[in-house]
């Protein structure tokens, strides 16, 4: 089997292209929320986790403090730690490979890897999507940042509406049944209730507290919210559940 005939490689590549392209929207929104070009690039190159990056600039553009922006980004990144455990159980990378694997451990690479059942396909799926998304996401972030700078006033072009759409787009694939929908509604309401009383940026931490408590005390539903935000029509399968024994056994 040649490299390109592998199903994992093909899925990984198509996810890379689809995800990489929307780096344009991150770049443009980041520029619109006041970050200079290299700050935008630092988020894509070093932080490299779409949801956390959007969270960071979303809190800032809402008037939140840099501390609140950082906290929101860090909390939203916790799921990557769980993905890291799954990938480590599947691929067990060593030395420098472990460092590289950790950096590209995101929704898309985890989905591509865990969707395969053959160990070498898992490896190909994870690395192709991880490296592919990293390269294209950064190229298109740069393009978006330049476009965003050229657009000027974000409101004029509806860029604030683009931010709304981006967050709904990240949330949407994770709402697959009534329970996650209920969690989303409860946290949204808690956020709005907090808005008049606490400094900008803090309502999101209130929502995080509420969500954390719900997650701690509820039973079952380990997979809720752990569905990666890949394009729905490219969805290669469901990622691992956090159970190492079954994470690799689910085909597409």
């Amino acid at each position: 089997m040649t490299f390109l005939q592998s199903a994992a490689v093909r899925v990984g590549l198509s996810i890379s292209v689809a995800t990489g392209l929307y780096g344009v929207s991150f770049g443009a929104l980041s520029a619109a929320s006041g970050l200079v070009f290299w700050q935008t690039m630092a988020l894509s190159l070093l932080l490299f986790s779409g949801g956390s990056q959007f969270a960071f600039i979303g809190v800032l553009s809402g008037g939140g403090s840099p501390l609140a922006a950082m906290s929101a980004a860090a909390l939203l990144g916790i799921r990557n730690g769980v993905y890291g455990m799954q990938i480590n159980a599947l691929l067990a990378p060593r030395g420098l490979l472990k460092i590289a694997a950790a950096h590209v451990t995101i929704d898309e690479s985890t989905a591509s890897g865990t969707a395969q059942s053959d160990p070498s396909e898992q490896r190909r799926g994870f690395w192709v999507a991880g490296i592919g998304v990293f390269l294209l996401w950064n190229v298109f972030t740069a393009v978006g940042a330049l476009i965003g700078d050229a657009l000027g006033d974000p409101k004029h072009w509806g860029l604030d509406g683009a931010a709304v759409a981006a967050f709904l787009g990240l949330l949407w694939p994770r709402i697959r049944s009534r329970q996650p929908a209920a969690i989303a509604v409860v946290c949204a309401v808690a956020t709005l209730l907090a808005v008049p009383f606490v400094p900008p940026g803090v309502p999101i931490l209130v929502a995080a507290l509420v969500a954390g408590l719900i997650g701690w005390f509820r039973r079952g539903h380990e997979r809720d919210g752990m569905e990666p935000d890949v394009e729905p029509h490219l969805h290669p399968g469901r990622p691992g559940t956090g159970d190492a024994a079954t994470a690799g056994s689910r085909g597409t």
Partner: protein
Amino acid sequence: MSLWPWILLAAALAFATKLLGYLVPAKVLANPRMSRVAGTLTIGLLAALTVLNTAVSGHHVVADARLGALAGAAVALYFKAPFLLVVVAGAAVAAALRFLGWS
């Protein structure tokens, strides 16, 4: 620029979180609470970010053109549009509503 330390700190935290997953013993995987808290946090935070960007201005809950953007994006998502098209739909509805005079 005072934002730089926060960007670098956020990046360091993000990487540390990812790496931690590779360093904890496999036994921790068996704990479903870990996965549940992470998943619930993700849903809750994204829901909060969605409403904050849609309907909040400073200390006030407001209804403006961004509400239209939310509806436009929802329609695009319902018809399984790719992410980039969803974002463009949100921007287009907000811009169009402003053009028609709704702030």
